[in-house]
């Protein structure tokens, strides 16, 4: 089968990391397979790059070409006669490609009827070999439907061909209202629906967040003038909304009169509950699970950034093992925290952070 032969040719898009078809790609995604490096322009007789062309300038006969030259199908095998069924629309226009039998003529005339799910030009070759194996009139929908792509126009919004479109029209997604669900690829459908649901939740949360006011500047947080200001500052211990700049201003405030940093400034301005850190977020949450997700994402992001106090092992971080940032040495090794346990006189165990000489001198009663 042509399909299995095709599978042995390395996908050009995959090589560049840009193949969107994944496991449905007709070409091989296995690095061990050979890529087809023949220049398609050279095949047609003229390559303007000449000797500087990055592709191989070798003659490939059309009979072999239909397998290793999948992209040369722009003008497939004119005049060789080894392949006769071409894209249905090309057949009658192409004088050199005379239908040799009456059955083929019938095929070309009624091809639209026979192939309601006709493939694009590049995907025609398998159908040709199939055509030899199966009698005409065999319903092609019975095989490889999952391999056929859906109409991208319909998926994007509207297809001008409507009912007469030769491609499969995808089912409508109930969330995004686009005809982009492939009827024969359940995995892809599932994936799309999940993505759509996630996007929808995000939009919903964003809509809900629009109306939330900061209690300090009395403005709606997401209506602030600059994008940098349009962020919430979430307090770890309570659920009162502030904009990130207001809450950070308050917490880093150096008041002229004796406000206590640890009891007043670290407290929520509304409920005075102490919070030890502020989480920036572009959306507000409605459930504690959502809040936890925002906090976890934030912490995970900080964990990938090198701590400037730890400075790749050259400095010391006052936050030690509870620092949110990454403590890694220059060679990528993570810092290991070894706690020193001191046995106190009364039998209890104390974890020593910094050991000072004065700690021992105090016990000497000099």
């Amino acid at each position, binding site marked *: 089968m042509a399909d299995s032969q095709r599978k042995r040719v390395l996908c050009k898009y995959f090589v560049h990391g840009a193949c969107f078809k994944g496991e449905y790609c007709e070409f091989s995604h296995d690095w061990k397979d050979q890529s087809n490096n023949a220049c398609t322009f050279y095949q047609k007789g003229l390559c303007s790059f000449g000797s500087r062309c990055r592709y191989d300038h070798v003659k490939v006969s059309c009979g072999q070409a239909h397998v290793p030259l999948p992209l040369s199908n722009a003008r497939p095998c004119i005049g060789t006669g080894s392949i006769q069924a071409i894209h249905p629309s090309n057949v009658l226009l192409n004088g050199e490609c005379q239908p040799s039998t009456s059955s083929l003529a019938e095929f070309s005339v009624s091809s639209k009827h026979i192939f309601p799910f006709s493939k694009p030009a590049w995907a025609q070759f398998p159908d040709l070999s199939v055509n030899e194996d199966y009698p005409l009139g065999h319903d092609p929908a019975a095989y490889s439907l999952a391999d056929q792509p859906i109409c991208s126009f319909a998926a994007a919004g509207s297809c001008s061909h409507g009912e007469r479109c030769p491609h499969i029209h995808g089912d409508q997604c109930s969330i995004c209202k686009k005809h982009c669900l492939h009827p024969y690829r359940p995995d892809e459908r599932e994936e799309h629906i999940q993505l759509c649901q996630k996007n929808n939740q995000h939009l919903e949360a964003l809509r809900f967040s629009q109306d939330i006011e900061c209690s300090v500047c009395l403005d709606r947080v997401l209506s602030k003038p600059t994008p940098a200001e349009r962020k919430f500052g979430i307090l770890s211990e309570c659920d009162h909304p502030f904009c990130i700049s207001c809450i950070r201003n308050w917490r880093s*405030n150096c008041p002229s009169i004796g406000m206590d940093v640890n009891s007043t400034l670290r407290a929520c301005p*509304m409920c005075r509950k102490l919070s030890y850190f502020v989480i920036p977020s572009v959306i507000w949450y409605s459930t504690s699970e959502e809040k936890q997700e925002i906090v976890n994402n934030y912490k995970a992001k900080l964990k990938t950034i090198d701590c400037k106090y730890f400075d790749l092992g050259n400095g010391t971080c006052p936050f030690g093992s509870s620092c949110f940032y990454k403590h890694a040495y220059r060679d990528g090794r993570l810092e290991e925290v070894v706690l020193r346990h001191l046995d106190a006189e009364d039998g209890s165990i104390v974890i020593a952070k910094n050991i000072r000489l004065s700690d021992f001198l105090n016990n000497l009663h000099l």
Partner: protein
Amino acid sequence: MLDTTRVQKELVECNRDTAISGVSIDLHDGANLTHLCGSISGPLGTPYEGGTFIIDIQLPSDYPFEPPKMQFITRVWHPNISSQNGAICLDILKDQWSPALTLKTALLSLQALLSAPAPDDPQDAVVAQQYLRDYQKFVGTARHWTDTFAKIATVGIDEKVSKLVEMGFPEELARSVLEAVKGDENAALEKLCSG
């Protein structure tokens, strides 16, 4: 820089329901938003009932991250308010300030302070001692001060001028002195007698 948008919002919000809350804020002089003038009505059932108390409000440039500076202009007899200069002893105007508080909530707190004095943490030791030792005398003095200083606004300035004219002072002089002491009849009389 003072957050003027917030102050403007606060003024609108505060003056929306002055009849119910009993507190209002006005601009002190023209377009300057850093100097405001608040007024609260004396709470019912207290010696301050019926009086209108004027409070001078200065907004620091870091407002709302720093508390507003408030001071009574109207003289008031209260353990937590200085009888000499009107300085206020209230935690939320000092170390317990929070940026979620507004001028309106601060004025309402002052109104609450009038109805619930805290003599254990006094601003004016003389008043606090009187409050603790002779409560009836304290109530009498406070009511007298309210009647004398906090109800002047209800009497028109012309009436006061004519009173002083009846006492034998020239009308022009009486009017200018009255205006100088912001309508305080007793202070004007003192000034006229000494001058």
